[in-house]
């Protein structure tokens, strides 16, 4: 089976222009990253701010082109720097961003927000668009009455549901989730993670899940890639990475994650008493 997404040696450089006092320099944001994701699977990309994970998300979503390297979607080579972006390609990959308060246009009703991708990328009629938006609202756990409401009338978790619904309107093959739950409360986070799991089953979706929260990654991922300064320092199945981390940075990351189990608390209290 061809993987839905395959990346071979992706590189992305940013040129920082110089000025009178500064020389121009190049930032290597992503330094040769390769991976593949099969249909219905989830690849989690973990790393700290500045490690290049969001740059990678922009490349995969075809917002930015890669400086070099190959990206294949459904076995087809994609190069937006040369060929531009067709609406057919756009329909295959969609993205959900971190902050649901920033990604929904406050002046548009939910229905219009959901219909917009259809207006841009398809030739659907208005009533078809409306029906589809209504159906999608129900799929993500909202109601038809929410169609005519504005984003400010929703809570953070509901907004993230709207953002997910919008991403699914074009029936994509691949969904890039850029820290989709890190702005949400614990209980809402659980609801959204459940929703993502349900949708993945229903539509056989492929996820690229970007996160810095290892407990979420452990829950949702099939494969895990750990990035550090633009390089993939660890890449493997969830079990491999979590049970036997190879790279020292991965180990640091695991050690730094706060543990909420009784044994660790007992150990800490014992240390403190000593």
């Amino acid at each position, binding site marked *: 089976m061809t993987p839905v997404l395959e990346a071979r040696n992706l590189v992305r450089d940013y040129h920082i222009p110089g000025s009178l006092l500064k020389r121009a320099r190049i930032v290597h944001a992503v330094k040769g990253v390769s991976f593949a994701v099969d249909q219905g699977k989830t690849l989690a990309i973990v790393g*700290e*701010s500045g490690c290049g994970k969001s740059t990678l998300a922009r490349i995969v979503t075809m917002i930015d082109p890669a400086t070099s390297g190959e990206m294949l979607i459904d076995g087809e080579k994609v190069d937006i720097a040369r060929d531009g972006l067709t609406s057919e390609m756009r329909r295959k990959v969609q993205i959900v961003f971190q902050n649901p308060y920033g990604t929904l246009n406050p002046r548009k009703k939910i229905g219009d927000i959901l219909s917009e991708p259809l207006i841009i990328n398809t030739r659907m009629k208005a009533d078809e668009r409306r029906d589809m938006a209504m159906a999608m609202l129900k799929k993500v756990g909202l109601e038809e009455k929410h169609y005519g409401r504005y984003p400010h009338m929703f809570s*953070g978790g509901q907004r993230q549901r709207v953002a997910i619904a919008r991403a699914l309107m074009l029936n994509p093959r691949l969904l890039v989730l850029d820290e989709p739950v890190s702005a949400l*409360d*614990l*209980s*809402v*986070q*659980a*609801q959204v*993670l*459940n929703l993502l*799991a349900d949708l993945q089953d229903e539509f056989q979706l492929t996820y690229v899940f970007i996160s*810095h*929260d*290892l*407990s*979420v990654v*452990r*829950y*949702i991922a099939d494969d895990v890639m750990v990035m550090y300064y633009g390089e993939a320092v660890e890449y493997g199945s969830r079990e491999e990475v979590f049970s036997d981390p190879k790279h020292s940075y991965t180990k*640091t*990351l695991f*050690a*730094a*994650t*706060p*543990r*909420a*189990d*009784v044994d*660790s*608390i*007992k150990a*800490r*209290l014992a240390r*403190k008493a000593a």
Partner: protein
Amino acid sequence: MSLLEVENLVVEFQTASGPFRAVNGVSLKVNEGEVLAIVGESGSGKSVSMLAAMGLLPWTAKVTADKLQFNGIDLLGMSSSERRRIVGKDIAMIFQEPIASLNPCFTVGFQIEEVLRLHLGLDKAARRARAIELFELVGIPNPAERLSHFPHQMSGGQCQRVMIAIALSCNPKLLIADEPTTALDVTIQKQILDLLMRLQAEHGMGMIIITHNMGVVAETADRVIVQYKGRKIEEADVLSLFESPKSAYTRALLSALPDNATGDRLPTIAEFLSDDQIFAGAVR
């Protein structure tokens, strides 16, 4: 005597649709050298109750309490100029967004020396020496050089260290940390938490950590208060809270942690608890 004693704290905001109760009858105590964690989701009133204790809420907020004492001094009845002598000196606070809580127009050195001048009245040379000492204490490399830097020239973790240095500058008796690591990466979070716990132990400070992260609670607290919609749901020492939570809400919160996921699905709070059920077990 407890360091901070709060009894039946109520905070109301006047809104267009009538008064809104952000905090509804919360009582708490913190002793010297003790770390209290207040956990809750957004809207649980955990930040507002601490801001009320420090008198940092806007005039639209109506704060009432049966008792609001710091070190035996009544905080509620005092004038704002009296309160300013305590707040920032004996009670210090660290906020969530380190970059937003520093003034971008002044160097970090100016901002830390301002506190030393206002509260301790040190002269210029003494202020500078103390500022360098504090920066060393919180682990900022090249402290003397860093004093002349502006907040935007430093990373988020470094800015949070500056905030901690400012908070510690007058050797406070009580340190309130409002989501001190939420905006930071996990590895930096670990460093900052370790730093805070080390300083707390060395100085024997009382400390309140406000957070929504159960992992942070597990790593830092002696005692925990769980809040929901402005009410206190549970209070327990950290081990018994995680080992045998009494209230249904705490149990639900703990089971929603992805770490504790047993099956394919995470249990969510709304699925099996109504507000009435949550408040049924509420404590005062």
